[in-house]
Structure formats: structure tokens, C-alpha cells
């Protein structure tokens, strides 16, 4: 770097100097100059802006850190850089179109967003019991696959943030296999809009189950390899053990759920305690740890992936045994068109088009009404809640009796859990802030919506 003093190249310093203290513009590889400048000031406290474009902040998270040496005195979390107005937009589309919007919130767990929303709509319609069993099994299978892919990203990016690219590459390659399954089943790797009010968009394509079986054969070994890489790796342990401590009291006060809560020893998992989609009929364990630290959260996530594999296996068995519809029988709610994958992507099946355009005027009217106008949902409000990879994902769905949601609010676990950052990071080392945030595993698409 050049030997110019920071005051000479810092374009913003002069204007901001009056507000509080001196401003340093850190452009990279100039840390020595900042340190020298800070020494000149003789001030022990240094306020550092981490983010919003820091690679380890999971997108666009900004943390304002007040540092005393390397110790964090104060951490203030700033969000909103990825606000996209999904909830507002949903108020201007039909109930079915809502899935297309909400799937984009937490982009690492799209199936969960869709399912939470659809369960809310179904509850408000009063048709929860009428959703076909096969659709529920497919939902469970996809949710568990999604849980694996999401946890893999959590662990992979965590490795990267601590400087271990091997972990990152290993985690992402496994996730890739999972996304391949999504592509096979839903047609898309992310943002599928596959779960719809009343069921799912279409049945599994032929051959999908055998691919899931291959995946189930391969995955345990892969997870074992990841465990081998991390579980007792001294560097990893040094960075994670007893770091970012948050106990049960803290979790309750701050509303923290998910792996962070389960790492305090409380086996609170909505799949077990308030089951939905038939989770009460599956055999699986709730993973817990009692260390309240980053390492415990990692272990919970690893164990959850192994349990998810068990659930997926049970789903495959059941799906092989069942045939039948995947969309609610009620023609006033169920999407009229059967979908098919054509050369240019997913669309209405040629058979359905031939039916409505060639043989049945009533079917055409029905299709037109349901697709453009949508169905009506009785007035009222409902709150549906599912266990997403990050904790309780809730959808507060309000209807005024119309064909569009009157208001949908999502209780995003990332949003709530991120509030715990100061509790985890203050008083610790600055390097552990990264570990703390990564162990919460926030997805900014979900936080900001």
C-alpha cells in the first residue's frame, strides 16, 4: 500500500468528523494505517461497521461494533437492506399466487415458507383434514430434504467464515445433490412454489423415488465424512466451544427457537410438540445438546440431518405404497390444471388444454375463474407454525372474505433469532462475532422479507 496517511485519501472523513470521533475508511490492506491513526487519537474505543457487504454476514447484515481492543463492548444489529415488501405484494395477488412470493423469503428453505403459508390458508379455509395424504407425505419429504440442504449451507458457510474452504466445498457438493432432487421433483432448484393451498402442484415424476433412494444410500456416508472433518477437529473446537453462550433463559426472553434453543437442552421441536402434516406418525428423535454454545448448535444440526434422512426414508416407503391425488378434491379450491414439464419448462398439461379448449365449455369457465379470480377464503385470522431449519416459522394469515390475502405476516425465525446477536457477542472477542452470527444461521431474505 502507499504510504499516504489516511487523512489524505479518506474522502468521507472531513464531513463526518464533527459527529463523533474520527472516521477511517477501510478499503483493505490498510489496517496498519488505521491502527496508527487510532493510536494517535489515544482513544481506546473503536466503532467498526461490519457489513452490510461483509462476506461473512450472510448477505446484507450490518453490525455496528464498539470495540475495546479486540473485545466487543457493544454490538448493534442493523437490518433492512434486503427488504422486498413480500408481505405487501401478497395482498395484491390471489391466495394461490401467494406461494410464489413467500417462497422467496428464506431462500435456503423455500419449501418451509410455502408450507407454513399454505397450512395457514388451509386452516382458514377449514380444509386441513381434506388435504390428500399423499400430498402431506410429499410435503414432509421435501421439507426434510430441504432441512438437510439448509443445514448443509449453515455448516458449509460456517466453515468458510472460520477460514476452512474444505468444509465449504464438502457442504455445498452435498447440497447440490439435494437440489438435484428438488429439480427432479418440482422442476426448480430454489423458489419452487410447489406447495399450494390444498396440496402440491403436481405428483412426483416417475423415477423420482429411485433417485431419492440413491440419495439415501449415499448421504449417511457423506454426513459421516463431514463429521470426521469437524467433530473433533482441534481448530474447529477452539473456535466453537464455549463461544457465543446463550442459555435457556436467554432464549426464552429473546424468543429464540430452533437449533439454538435445542442446544440449551430443551427438546422443543414443533414437529413433535405441535405436529402438522402428519409428523406424529413418523419415527424420529429430537436432537439436543446442553452446551449452549456454537459447537452444540453445530452438533444439533448434524444430528437433525441424520434424523431427517430417517424421515425421508419413511416417506419413500409410504409414497411407494400410496397412489392418489395430490390436490384437494374440492374443485372450488384445487387448481384445475394438471401440470406437465414441456420442452420450455413447466406448464399446463396438453391433455388439460385439449379438455378445456376442445370439449368442455364449463371446464374452461371454471379454469378461467379459478385462475384469474381465485378462490375466496372465509373472513378471519389463523396462525400456522412449523419447525423450519432455523426455528419456528409462523404465518399469521388474515382474510376479509375475499380472493386475496388481507394481510399475511411471517414470523421469521431468522428475524427473531438475530436479535440474540448482542447477547451472544458482547463481552467476547471480535472474531467470535462471526461465529455467533453464523451459529444463528440467519438468512437475510427471511429477516428482511
Amino acid at each position, binding site marked *: 500500500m502507499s504510504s499516504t496517511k489516511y487523512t489524505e485519501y479518506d474522502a468521507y472523513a472531513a464531513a463526518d468528523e464533527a459527529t463523533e470521533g474520527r472516521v477511517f475508511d477501510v478499503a483493505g490492506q490498510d489496517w496498519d494505517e488505521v491502527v496508527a491513526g487510532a493510536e494517535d487519537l489515544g482513544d481506546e474505543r473503536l466503532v467498526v461497521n461490519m457489513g452490510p457487504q461483509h462476506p461473512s454476514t450472510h448477505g446484507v447484515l450490518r453490525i455496528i461494533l464498539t470495540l475495546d481492543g479486540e473485545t466487543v463492548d457493544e454490538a448493534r444489529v442493523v*437490518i*433492512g437492506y434486503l*427488504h422486498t*415488501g413480500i*408481505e*405487501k*405484494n401478497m*395482498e*395484491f*395477488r390471489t391466495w394461490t399466487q401467494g406461494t410464489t412470493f413467500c417462497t422467496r423469503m428464506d431462500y435456503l428453505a423455500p419449501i418451509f415458507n410455502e408450507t407454513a403459508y399454505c397450512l395457514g390458508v388451509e*386452516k*382458514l379455509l*377449514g380444509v386441513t383434514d381434506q388435504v390428500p395424504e399423499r400430498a402431506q407425505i410429499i410435503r414432509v419429504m421435501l421439507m426434510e430434504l430441504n432441512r438437510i440442504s439448509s443445514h448443509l449451507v449453515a455448516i458449509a458457510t460456517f466453515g468458510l467464515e472460520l477460514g476452512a474452504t474444505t468444509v465449504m466445498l464438502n457442504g455445498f457438493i452435498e447440497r447440490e445433490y439435494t437440489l438435484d432432487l428438488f429439480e427432479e421433483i418440482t422442476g426448480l432448484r430454489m423458489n419452487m412454489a410447489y406447495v399450494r393451498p390444498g396440496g402440491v402442484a403436481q405428483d412426483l415424476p416417475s423415477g423420482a423415488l429411485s433417485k431419492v433412494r440413491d440419495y439415501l444410500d449415499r448421504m449417511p456416508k457423506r454426513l459421516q465424512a463431514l463429521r470426521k472433518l469437524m467433530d473433533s477437529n482441534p481448530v474447529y473446537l477452539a473456535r466453537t466451544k464455549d463461544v457465543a453462550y446463550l442459555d435457556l433463559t436467554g432464549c*426464552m*426472553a*429473546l*424468543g*429464540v*427457537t430452533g437449533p439454538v434453543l435445542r442446544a440449551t437442552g*430443551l427438546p*422443543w421441536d414443533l414437529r413433535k*410438540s*405441535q405436529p402438522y402434516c402428519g409428523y406424529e406418525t413418523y419415527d424420529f428423535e429430537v436432537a439436543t445438546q446442553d452446551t449452549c454454545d456454537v459447537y452444540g448448535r453445530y452438533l444439533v444440526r448434524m444430528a437433525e440431518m441424520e434424523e431427517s434422512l430417517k424421515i425421508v426414508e419413511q416417506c419413500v416407503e409410504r409414497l411407494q405404497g400410496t397412489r392418489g391425488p395430490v390436490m384437494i378434491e374440492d374443485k372450488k379450491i384445487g387448481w384445475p390444471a394438471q401440470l406437465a414439464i414441456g420442452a420450455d419448462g413447466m406448464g399446463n398439461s396438453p391433455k388439460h388444454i385439449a379438455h378445456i379448449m376442445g370439449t368442455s365449455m364449463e371446464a374452461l369457465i371454471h379454469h378461467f375463474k379459478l385462475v384469474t*379470480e*381465485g378462490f375466496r377464503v372465509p*373472513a*378471519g*385470522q*389463523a*396462525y400456522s*407454525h412449523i419447525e423450519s431449519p432455523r426455528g*419456528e416459522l*409462523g404465518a*399469521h394469515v*388474515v382474510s*376479509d*372474505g*375475499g*380472493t*386475496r390475502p*388481507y*394481510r399475511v*405476516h411471517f*414470523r421469521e425465525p431468522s*428475524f*427473531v433469532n*438475530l*436479535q440474540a446477536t448482542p447477547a451472544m457477542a458482547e463481552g467476547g472477542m471480535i472474531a467470535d462475532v462471526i461465529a455467533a452470527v453464523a451459529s444463528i444461521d440467519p438468512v437475510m431474505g427471511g429477516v*428482511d*422479507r
Partner: protein
Amino acid sequence: MSSQHPEQQAEQAADRLPAQVEEERREQPIARTGMFGSKTTGDTSGYGGLVVRQSPKVGAPRPYGGPDGAAEPGEFDEIADQLERAFPDYGDAIERVVIHRGEMTFFVKREHLREVARTMRDDPSLRFELCSAVSGVHYPQDTGAELHSVTHLLSITHNRRVRLEATCPDADPHVPSLVPVYPTSDWHERETYDFFGIVYDGHPALTRIQMPDDWVGHPQRKDYPLGGIPVEYRGAEIPPPDERRSYT
């Protein structure tokens, strides 16, 4: 077996009640007129003169039942009984109780909200230790109670959920903050303030959270437009979503 949903049946039964219900209904404010959202001559359905009134605000009668039905006293009655016992001002603080779709909502007068929440959290027989979420809803037609602040509570101890709903008028958008009771509602309340303009009194730092600090207006309110531009596709112009025909 009837294919109708029991609640649907109940609604229809309520419609057949004596004329007094009709009168009650006629006193309600008008929710909308006409059909299909059309304000011009576009409505050829013959429903142009239709006047739809808001449904009266009714509370659920006892027994409240539980999440699975209201045939006999259940979980919800227990919660209400415990709250009545633990919170002396119950009759004054709780406007009404709504049981709908297996969920329980207490409509709490805003001045009592914090104390009700504190009782909900602290009483061992209630013990709603976790505040799941706070969200706002804007009902512009609900004169005098346009803004609703909805708090979802969860009891891990008893494995139950309830909802507390407090309302405030547009002219005086103040609701007490629940941060002293549930610290987690900090960001939730900031978000609800940001989107609806509900001012949570007693919040430690009520600032915008999703929108930029200098943003004007509260975007989730019903009088705030979605915005958007018309899109041209193959020669045809498609208006922005909030200007398209709505069917409500």
C-alpha cells in the same frame, strides 16, 4: 353425513335467527358496495346496488372448547378461567374472546395489554413464556379501531397458544410496548411501527427497522399504494397489480 363444515353450518344457522339479527346487521358500517370491485359501469352482474355491511363483532359464547372443537369445556375455557382468576380486572380488560379455527383470541383493551401479558407470562397455570410474534393489521373501515396489534403467545410449559389483540384508532395510534415483558418483541414492535405507524409506548428505541430511516409513510397500511408501473407484453399493456380489477 353432511359435507358441510360444522362452522359453515353454524353460520347458516345464525343467519336463520329471528329478525333482530337483521336489525343488528343493518346498524353495522358499510364494508363495500357493488360487486367485483368495479366503480364504473363495468359491472354488468346486476349486483351494482349491492350493499354489504361489516359483520358485527361478536365474541364466542362459553364453552370455548379446545383446538379440536367447542362441544364441551376444554383447554380454552381453562385459559380463560385461569386468566380471570389471576387478573382481577378481567371483565374490564378483555373486550371479547373469539374462538375461530381452533385458535383463541383475547381482544384486550390497550391500556391493560401489558398487565395482561405479564399475567399471561408469570402465572404458573398460564405460563406463556414465549412471545412468538407481533404483527399489525390495518382495518380502515373499523372506525375507532383501525389499527390492530396482534401478539401471538406460546406456552412451552403447557403446550398452548393464544393471541392477544389490541386495537387503537388511526388518530391516536398508541399501544403499550411489551418489551418490558417479552424482550423479543423489540424488533417485532419496531417492524409493526415501521409498517403501520403504531407507536409502542415504552419501547426503548422505537425506530424504523426495514425501511430506510428517512422513509415517509407506513407501507403496510391499506391507504399506502403498492406502486408499480404498467408492463407491456406482446403489444398489450398490463396495469400494475394494485390497479388491476379485484374481485372482492
